[in-house]
């Protein structure tokens, strides 16, 4: 067969091949570039977020092809709002807050767990006459977040059989009013943070755990994601969950090493406080990323009863499957 190539044909052919190559390269490039996740924290970085810092420090996110950016919010409702609007891909939120947001129509998907137990407690100073919740009868009880913690406080007091107690909004100053005696107890302080802080300030802290008094067991800190993003990036979400599980395993294997990694990334963290807080938090990190629908149901029904939810939230839509 006689091959006759005209120069134009060759030229055209080469053009086509190079274009195809370029496209192929771009696709490959896209796949090999790290998947970016903007993750809004619930508060300023603290030991509750340690697994995230371990994952980052040990390259566990990188290994899964993720580039996670940790963002501090200006206040606690930022996280859910930013995720719902799509300004961020993921965030950390509280299980009750997630349910409230969902009932107000914010699109959210619960995709992971960080702390698998409630952290909020009823904090008080030991040795001032309070030993049982019933001792709060007629006393002044402060709460941190109106709309959330006052509801929890009332449910707690009801379960404890306390009929008359003065509820006061104390903002986010928890230790101060307890120390000065302005309030006798505060609902909303964390058992791993404010509890430890009180000890460091020389006060003997006492705590009633909410989940022992009429409030269902819930995950204090969970990961939420923008639903449409999550659906179109299922692989990324699964990668994230894997990375986190791995991180907690590493944590368990070497807590000291984990803490060191955390401090390296956050030099401004208050060492003594966080070290002690870490000790308390360690057993509470979620060991499994499995989301228990039952837990969420119990919490949802409770919040519905207490009037915190305006409508029954469809858990099937918001929990990751």
């Amino acid at each position, binding site marked *: 067969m006689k091959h006759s190539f005209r120069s134009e044909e060759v030229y055209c052919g080469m053009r086509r091949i190079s274009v195809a190559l370029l496209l192929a390269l771009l696709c490959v490039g896209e796949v090999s570039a790290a998947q970016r996740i903007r993750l809004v924290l619930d508060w300023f970085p603290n030991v509750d977020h340690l697994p995230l810092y371990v994952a980052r420090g040990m390259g566990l996110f990188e290994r899964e092809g993720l580039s996670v950016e940790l963002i501090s919010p200006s*206040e*606690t*409702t930022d996280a*859910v*709002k930013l995720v*719902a*609007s799509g300004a961020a891909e993921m965030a950390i939120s509280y299980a009750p*807050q997630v349910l*409230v*947001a969902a009932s*107000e*129509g*914010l699109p959210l998907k619960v995709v992971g767990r960080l702390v698998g137990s409630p952290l909020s407690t009823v904090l008080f100073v030991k040795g001032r006459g309070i030993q049982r919740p019933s001792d709060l009868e007629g006393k002044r009880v402060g709460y941190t*977040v*109106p*709309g*959330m913690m006052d509801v929890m406080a009332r449910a707690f007091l009801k379960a404890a059989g306390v009929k008359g107690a003065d*509820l*006061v*909004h*104390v*903002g986010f*100053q928890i230790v*101060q*009013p307890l120390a*000065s005696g*302005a309030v006798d107890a505060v609902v909303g302080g964390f058992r791993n943070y404010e509890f430890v802080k009180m000890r460091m300030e020389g006060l003997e802290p006492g705590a009633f755990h909410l989940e022992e008094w009429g409030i269902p067991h819930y995950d204090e800190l969970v990961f939420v994601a923008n639903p449409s993003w999550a659906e179109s990036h299922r692989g990324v979400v699964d990668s994230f969950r894997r990375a986190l599980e791995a991180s907690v395993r590493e944590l368990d294997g070497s807590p000291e090493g984990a803490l060191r990694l955390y401090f390296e990334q956050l030099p401004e963290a208050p060492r003594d406080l966080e070290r002690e807080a870490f000790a308390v938090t360690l057993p509470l990190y979620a060991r499994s990323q499995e989301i228990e629908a039952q837990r969420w149901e119990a919490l949802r029904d409770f919040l519905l009863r207490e009037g*915190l939810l305006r409508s029954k939230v469809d858990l099937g839509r918001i929990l990751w499957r």
Partner: protein
Amino acid sequence: MRPVELAKPLIPLGFFLGWHLLAVGLEIPPYLLPSPLAVLRAFLSDPRLFLGHALVTFAEMLLGLFLASFASLLASLLLISSSLFEGALSGFLVLLQSTPLFALAPLLVVWLGYGLSSKVAMVALVSFFPMAVSLMGGLKAHERRHAELFELMGMGLWGRFVHLYLPAALPSLFGGLRASCAVAAAGAVLGEWMGSSRGLGYLMVQMNARLRVAELFACIGLLSVVSLGLWSSISLLERRVVFWREERDEA
């Protein structure tokens, strides 16, 4: 009716219309920007609740402004009686102005508790500076010749204050009061954010935590109404008290 008169109510109307179009037209989710109708509905779902809290905040603002008025009058009296005070006082005022009041708010709660007093104090602190500045400017507004006349008469300090300085300064006092209205609202809300059980600021925090954005906007709207109401009342009072002014002043 002159065209200008007609235009006046159109401006706020236009604002609400624009807002509505923005929220609905651009399909902005209600948890980011509720439409004005949604906000109105939120308010009407429990007007008693909103108005009750609004009343508390209004009271805080009123009391705080009273306190600030007295304080600035006192400060101005000290100022005119001695040039020594003038230097010291202006220094103090500059210091007060440059202190971020956000930092003072939690301290006030610590010192004065969670009740009304810490909010009133906050309002007073925020309003004091603009009022004092306005008042001091006004005190110097009296004619130099008037001062000469009084000196010639041999009028004592008290007499000069009552017959000359105070009446001469009243227009500025009211000007300062009106200027302080908006700041007073911010001060009251700030104080409430630091710890309170009532007031629009408290309600705002609650609604925000519950992610009830329409209710939150209703609070903000109501706060503006309260400020405006206060502003108008002050203007009305001014017209009675400063009876010698011939100018027509519309709110």
